[in-house]
């Protein structure tokens, strides 16, 4: 491979030109060329694609041996400060020549193998080892490394070797600053954002292609399968899915059974164009599947809906859904009806006013006549003191009297508490007493019953009276319940309140339908009606609650304003 490999041009540095030759194996070889002439071969283990970082010289070559045609574009070097100046070029060339001579690249050079042996210190496969190793090869290697770094830098910055750039890519024609002045105004706007600059790609080397993204997983297998099915298709065998599709198409084409079913997206429940059907018919779509089936079969195979309990068919209130406004609410009412409605509205207002007045009266500051004087204050402070003492004395006296009078007549010797067990005799006596008491009671009851025979009439009267009382109570209860039924239930924190009566005053009444100004809102009426029928609980709008207190800060600009 060596020497005959396809050459890939690597780059130039101030001291010479190098060409890299891509080897076929894992090892890459670099041809070292100076001034268009191959000077030797280098080998690098640290090669990443194009950028060959460190190259070790493997075999210097003697003699003039043109390896690859390397273009001479040295004139471009003068431009960039990155590059060595054209004046530096000869010196660099001289240095290379020197190194070459040191290396023995001249015909008169010694064989490196026979050169003076130096001790190898450590491995040289890392840069650290190289640094320690101060041989001529090492120097060359370092130089090559520097050179390669430079090449990569050029590639990153300029997108290729500067030496190869056309002149237009490097220079521009300076035509004075006439345009500059004109453009200055827009400069601020033209200046890109910093973030855009930061996000721009740093290097001009295009990113390597991701080969994996173009690969198809299981591509080989799929291809083989495809080929297999193609072969089968030639013989007339189709896959199952295809066969089913074909048959379905044929079936659909041949007998046009029913209308062609187009799968339009089902319209939602609020779509203005939605369709309806006869839901109360026997064969409505909801129950079509269930009609005519055995109930046992359905019970075993279908998930059946839970039956709605009949209690729910009753509405919570018997009030009508739409309560028609009183005749006085006509847009052109009769005199009496209107007056009646006004009276009703007036009564509501009076009640409201009364409640308001009551609160006001209770909260009012007392007038001069009612204001407490020194005398009333004193009396208030003494309240109860004098009278109480009198009362107490009396009470005490009474208690004393009671104690004196009560103690004398009733002075039975208290039976001493027996801490121990009862004697047998005591038990017997108690038992006898109990039995006797029981007997006495039974006898009395029997006697009473005997007597009741003669009280039959009065007993009957009593019974009747009691039954009537019960009946009255039941009726009262029912009446109360009936009365409560019409009323809206208490369903939550807030009580239902009747909406304000819609009424128009006599001078607000419309002359004709055209001039009518509607009163109240139907929406409000409907909402209140739902509440009145206890279908929804009355609620109040949730109040906005601030979690944290607002903090007030005076802005400086505001503070600075002085008037």
């Amino acid at each position: 491979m060596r020497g005959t490999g396809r050459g890939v041009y690597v780059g130039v540095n101030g001291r010479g030109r190098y060409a890299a030759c891509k080897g076929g194996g894992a090892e890459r070889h670099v041809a070292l060329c100076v001034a268009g002439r191959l000077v030797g071969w280098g080998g690098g283990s640290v090669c990443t694609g194009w950028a060959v970082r460190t190259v070790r010289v493997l075999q210097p070559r003697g003699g003039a041996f043109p390896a690859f045609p390397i273009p001479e574009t040295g004139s471009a070097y003068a431009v960039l400060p990155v590059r060595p100046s054209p004046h530096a070029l000869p010196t660099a060339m001289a240095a290379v020549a020197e190194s070459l001579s040191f290396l023995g690249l001249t015909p008169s050079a010694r064989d490196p193998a026979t050169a003076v042996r130096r001790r190898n210190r450590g491995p040289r496969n890392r840069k650290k080892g190289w640094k320690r190793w101060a041989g001529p090869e090492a120097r060359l290697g370092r130089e090559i490394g520097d050179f390669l770094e430079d090449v990569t830098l050029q590639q990153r910055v300029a997108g290729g070797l500067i030496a190869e750039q056309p002149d237009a890519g490097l220079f521009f024609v300076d035509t004075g600053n006439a345009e500059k002045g004109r453009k200055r105004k827009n400069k601020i706007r033209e200046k890109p954002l910093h973030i855009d600059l930061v996000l721009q790609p740093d290097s001009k080397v295009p990113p390597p292609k991701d080969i994996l993204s173009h690969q198809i997983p299981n591509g080989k297998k799929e291809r083989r399968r495809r080929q297999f099915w193609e072969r089968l298709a030639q013989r007339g065998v189709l896959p199952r899915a295809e066969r089913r599709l074909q048959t379905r198409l044929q079936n659909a084409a041949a007998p046009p059974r029913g209308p062609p079913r187009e799968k339009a997206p089902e319209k939602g429940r609020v779509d203005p164009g939605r369709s309806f059907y006869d839901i109360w018919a026997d064969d409505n779509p909801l129950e079509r599947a269930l009609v005519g089936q055995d109930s046992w079969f359905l019970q075993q195979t279908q998930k059946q809906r839970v039956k709605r309990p009949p209690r729910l068919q009753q509405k919570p209130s018997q009030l009508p859904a739409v309560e028609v406004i009183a005749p006085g609410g006509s847009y052109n009412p009769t005199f009496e009806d209107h007056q009646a409605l006004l009276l009703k509205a007036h009564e509501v207002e009076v009640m409201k006013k009364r409640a308001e007045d009551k609160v006001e009266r209770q909260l009012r500051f007392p007038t001069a006549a009612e204001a407490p004087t020194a005398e009333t204050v004193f009396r208030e402070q003494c309240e109860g003191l004098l009278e109480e003492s009198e009362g107490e004395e009396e009470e005490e006296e009474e208690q004393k009297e009671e104690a004196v009078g009560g103690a004398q007549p009733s002075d039975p010797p208290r039976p001493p508490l027996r801490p121990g067990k009862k004697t047998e005799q005591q038990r017997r006596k108690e038992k006898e007493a109990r039995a006797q008491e029981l007997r006495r009671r039974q006898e009395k009851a029997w006697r009473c019953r005997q007597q009741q025979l003669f009280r039959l009439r009065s007993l009957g009267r009593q019974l009747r009276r009691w039954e009537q009382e019960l009946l009255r109570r039941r009726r009262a209860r029912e009446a109360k319940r009936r009365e409560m039924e019409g009323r809206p239930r208490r369903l939550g924190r807030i009580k239902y309140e009747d909406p304000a009566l819609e009424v128009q005053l006599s001078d607000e009444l419309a002359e004709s339908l055209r001039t009518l100004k509607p009163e109240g809102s139907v929406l409000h009426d409907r909402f209140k009606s739902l509440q009145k029928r206890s279908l929804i609980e009355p609620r109040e709008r949730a109040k906005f609650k601030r979690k944290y207190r607002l903090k007030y800060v005076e802005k400086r600009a505001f503070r600075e304003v002085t008037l």
Partner: protein
Amino acid sequence: MGGLEKKKYQRGSATNYITRNKARKKLQLSLPDFRRLCILKGIYPHEPRHKKKVNKGSTAARTFYLLKDIKFLLHEPIVNKFREYKIFVRKLRKAYGKSEWGTAERLKDNKPTYKLDHIVKERYPTFVDALRDLDDALSMCFLFSTFPRTGKCHVQTIQLCRRLAVEFLNYVIASRSLRKVFLSIKGIYYQAEVLGQPITWITPYTFAHDHPTDVDYRVMATFTEFYTTLLGFVNFRLYHSLNLHYPPKIDGQAEVEVKPAEGKEYAMDSESYLEKLSALSASLARVVAPTQEDDVEMDEFPVEGETAEQMDARRKEQEALEKHKKLFEGLRFFLNREVPREPLAFVIRCFGGQVSWDKSLCIGATYDVSDPSITHQIVDRPRVEQQVVGRYYLQPQWVFDSVNAKLCLPVADYFPGVLLPPHLSPFVTEQEGDYIPPEKLKLLAMQRGEDPGEETEEEEEEEEEEEEDDNDKDEEEEEEDESEKEEEIKLKKMEEQKAQSNKALPVKVTAGKVRLEDKQRLEQEQQSEEKRLAIMMMKKREKYLYKKIMFGKKRKIREANKLAAKRKAHDTALKEEKKKTKKARRA
């Protein structure tokens, strides 16, 4: 003793109820979802009889539900849909947050939806059940259909409500089932009789209305969501009961008429169809072409225990109804642009009239103002320039009053610029002994076929005018006195009659029946005698009750008399004022 200790609140009513929050937790739903579910399923909170027991000793006011109701809710399939929807919203929010537009689109395509069909069927097992609950549904749909499309609720809901409302109106027109209309200051009340069920609904005036803030729109929207589904199914059934197409189709020849003639494009066909329908001027196409002899005599089967009289009354009622349905048949109306078009067109068409309006006002105008066959032009301005001979110019109230009175009222009271007679509520039915305003009395008389009040009053007025000319006040006063006396006598008579009649007495005895007077009087005497004896034979308690009832009746009559007197005073005051103004004008 033995046995387990009984603990408080583990038995009885405390276990039958569940608080709202507990129910919500049991169903694993958020509060708005729970509320929506309850409304859709028709499950309402319950007020327990012993709150303290149910509330485990606390007296705080809480919302309770029956535990069995909540257990019933647990089986509802749309509960799962609510949960799915919650998850869907979460996913969508996440996708938006991550700017994954593709994911968001995919999620939106698979948005979980639910339908309420099965709930409608469950809540209303029969069609009649649904009809009975239609009041709410109609009111809600009519209300929502007037909402502006400003985001208070979904635009789709508004459109659906409008469609359903228009369909229902068209059904009422086709079946001629409207019975009563009442223009109130709040809105227009309608009552129709659909398959024997009276259905009342209210529609707001079409003026722009402000939205009240103390109304929970979410709750209302949920109710509407359910009611639109219900109304749709009801409409379908109603249309099919009349052999009409559903969704409604405008009759072929009518459609040609409705189409703008000049070839000007009004709107796209699909868009303008609903508008054409909502114009209410065209009749609907039937599935089966109507035969010419449509009205077949109904076979009459006497109901068990029904006398010939009752049957007769029934037949009469039927005839009156048929007559009422054809109230405006053969009349051609034209609506000026200042009158509310939709209610008027609806009412006129409901009673067989033909109606049109200015072409620029709305689609569906069938004839022009200059059409000579127009019989009534509805006008609502103080005076009309260039009146065409051969047609009445009337204020819109005439139409509504005529419908309520079940006859075409005399037009003189309703000419433009004339002070209108009051618009009476047709929903008020006076009990016996109630005060009836004179306007209503006049109306009742006219319904009976008499024509008393109108002419006499006019005559009176004329007389009055003459008298005024003569400046003969004394006579007038006398006359008034006389009339007053007459009325007093009449009232006294009425009072007596009413006092006599008790519950057992049939009301119709005195109503004009052709009988020999002697017999009648004899019978009456006998009856009064019997009654007197019966009162004498009453027990003390019952007599007390009877006296109480009679006293109440008398009081009612007294009140009615008082009201009548008041009205009379008011009227005379008005008259005198009028006279004064007239005199002033003359002078």
